[in-house]
């Protein structure tokens, strides 16, 4: 018989190390300086574009949407200022994605994680949420002290917490709200949303994006960069020793010592490190790391530690940029007492720039020269050919004439192929029966049923090519499509 043991008396069989470190709350301190100003500026630009772009108008003439940037799913059109794209031109987005990816690589080759530090939505929104937190609940020390003391839930405290989350949710809600405005006429949709007339899908999307923004920027913050985002891993593999990164200058900083001690040492003619170990670089860091440990995955390279360190260096009368943008090569060169060197023009920066130029140039070229009149022809599958009572052969085709212009066009249809063949467009009594003419409305696809008839004798072969020429009578532009004319 087994000995019985109470569960609480048991020793754990094995101990497990957690797969990731426990979350340490980060309290970034407010700071002012060059990089903070750059970040505020970029935040204003990025959020400004995101929130207000849907309200920018662009006149495209009567009956056309006047929203500068609009993704019109029901009508299958994408509008971007003077550009209008149809679904079959979606490959332009492929080009944009290629450019975006290579631009990211180029940024990385030049200045490391510029994207992470200044432009990434996660950074921008988290930065904004941190600012709200500081505004409502006080700066770093105040909040650390309160959290450490445990602090009772006073009325004041409850108000603060409530206010902070309310403002966060408002920002998050506005973020989701702006998103849906890109898919419909913004002023109308705003009115519909306010009067609860908008489609359910709009509310669902706003709710989803409110939730993600609130969660990612308010609660997950640097955890997204450290655990979720693939870019830090890819970036580390893509970077080289010439890329500028936010770097602590070991040669100047070490040995760390106090202001007083450093002054004494220098008075004796000895050297002393400039770093006074004030930990301001850690205090302002939005991911809570120590830049003096060197380049690391958690560092988004936002440059706020540069501002913090510069402020301290100015105060103690030492040269600024103890922390600054520098490359790996210079870390070693400075230690060896050599002057720093920088190289912007390298194989990889040139290659990335060239790829961007080629893809961008190709896109601009194709966009500038694309035809605004197009035709696709599809042969009937069943039946492929019909024998008529006089023995002649008829083939039927479905043609789609695409008019991408902002005005209606008169087009004529000619065929070239079987000898003595005639063409008829179902439902069209053209005044010129040999050359049917039809009007294709502005920004429309006209589907036509074309009947091509050839006398039996003139068509000895089983299948001959037939080409349809669609001619814009006004502009003289021609679009063509080729198919086959089949005999039974």
């Amino acid at each position: 018989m087994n000995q019985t043991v109470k569960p609480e008396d048991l020793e754990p069989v094995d101990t497990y190390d957690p797969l990731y470190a426990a979350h340490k709350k980060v309290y970034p301190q407010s700071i002012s300086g060059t990089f903070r100003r750059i970040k505020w500026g970029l935040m204003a630009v990025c959020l400004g574009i995101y929130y207000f772009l849907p309200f920018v108008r662009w006149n495209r003439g009567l009956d056309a949407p006047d929203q500068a940037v609009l993704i019109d799913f029901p009508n299958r059109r994408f509008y971007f200022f003077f550009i209008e794209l149809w679904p079959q031109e979606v490959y332009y987005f492929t080009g944009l994605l290629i450019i975006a990816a290579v631009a990211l690589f180029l940024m990385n080759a030049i200045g490391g994680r510029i994207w992470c530090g200044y432009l990434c939505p996660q950074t921008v929104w988290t930065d904004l949420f941190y600012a709200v937190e500081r505004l409502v609940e006080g700066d770093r020390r105040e909040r650390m002290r309160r959290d450490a003391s445990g602090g009772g839930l006073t009325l004041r405290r409850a108000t603060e917490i409530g206010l902070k989350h309310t403002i966060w949710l408002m920002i998050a809600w506005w973020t989701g709200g702006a998103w849906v405005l890109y898919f419909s006429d913004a002023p109308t949709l705003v009115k519909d949303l306010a009067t609860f007339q908008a489609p359910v899908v709009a509310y669902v999307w706003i709710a989803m994006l409110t939730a993600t923004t609130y969660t990612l920027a308010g609660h997950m913050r640097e955890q997204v960069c450290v655990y979720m985002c693939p870019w830090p891993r890819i970036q580390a593999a893509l970077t080289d020793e010439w890329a500028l990164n936010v770097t602590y200058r070991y040669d100047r900083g070490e040995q760390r010592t106090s202001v007083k001690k450093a002054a004494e040492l220098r008075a004796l003619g000895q050297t002393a490190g400039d770093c006074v170990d004030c930990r301001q670089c850690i205090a302002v860091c939005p991911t809570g790391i120590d830049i003096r440990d060197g380049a690391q995955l958690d560092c988004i390279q936002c440059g706020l530690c540069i501002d913090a360190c510069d402020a301290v260096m100015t105060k103690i009368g030492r040269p600024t940029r103890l922390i600054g943008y520098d490359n790996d090569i210079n870390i070693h060169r400075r230690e060896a007492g050599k002057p720093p060197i920088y190289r912007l023009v390298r194989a990889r920066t040139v290659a990335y720039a060239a790829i961007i130029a080629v893809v961008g140039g190709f896109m601009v070229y194709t966009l500038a020269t694309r035809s605004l009149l197009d035709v696709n022809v599809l042969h009937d599958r069943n039946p492929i050919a019909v024998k008529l009572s006089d023995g002649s052969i008829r083939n039927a085709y479905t043609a789609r004439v695409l008019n991408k212009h902002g005005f209606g066009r008169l087009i004529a249809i000619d065929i070239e192929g079987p000898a003595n063949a005639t063409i008829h467009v179902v439902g069209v009594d053209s005044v010129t029966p040999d050359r049917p003419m039809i009007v294709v409305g502005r920004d429309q696809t006209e589907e036509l049923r074309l009947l091509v008839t050839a006398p039996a004798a003139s068509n000895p072969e089983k299948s001959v090519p037939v080409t349809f020429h669609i001619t814009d009578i006004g502009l003289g532009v021609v679009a063509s499509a080729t198919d086959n004319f089949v005999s039974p």
Partner: protein
Amino acid sequence: MAEHHDIDTVTGTATTGHAWDGIKELNTPLPRWWVICFYLTILWAIGYWIVYPAWPLISSNTGGLLGYSTRASLAVELSDLEKIRGDKMAVLATASLADIEKDPALLALARARGKTVFGDNCAACHGSGATGAKGFPNLNDDDWLWGGTLEQIEQTIRYGARSGNAKAHEGQMLAFGKDGVLKRDEIVAVANYVRSLSGLPTRQGYDAAAGAKIFAENCVACHGDNAKGNPELGAPNLTDQIWLYGSDEVTLIETITNGRAGVMPAWEGRLDPVTIKAMAVYVHSLGGGK
């Protein structure tokens, strides 16, 4: 039970008392949240039985408080669909056949509707591409037994041919051989004469004069003096290249001997007038319409 339900030393969980080769089976209790969820599903099921149809009875079933039925739900969805189509279909209902064909939007609508309904109702005989088969006319060509204008096509769809409908097309090819009107050699002669009308080769040495005479005496009443047919009677044009049953001598002899009377059902009453209209436009637009 006789077995010892002791506690496993490693996990602290009770065992079932079963042991195989010294390996004991743990009797790990279900997590409480799981058990609660399980009971909730039972409660949910009971609630479901009450409000929705659930238990089969002898001749029906428990209806449930909500009175829900999938059939009623389908009816609602279908009527909603009709409401959505309502405005467009109303235009189809009032527009004339010719106007429908001239308006690209209405033509597209009628063709779409017509094509679907054709697939469901007509394709069984005429084929999915409306190419027909022996005895079932090809609707893509320009040869029409009962006329190929929009109005004539609509008429044929609505009332059918020899369908039993009072307004159906009537008239049939008589069984000249079976009924003893013509003798064997007369039938051969007239069959070859008919082949000659459309330029087909004829049997060597057949009596052309006799064939012409027999044709004039027996066939012109329906097929006309010039053998061009008569859409009033459904008599086909015998001078063209389209043959519903075939143009070879054997088939022609069979046709003349036994007669022909293909049936096209009347669709009035089975399809609504707007749908029949759409179908007429669709068939007409296949290419052969006059």
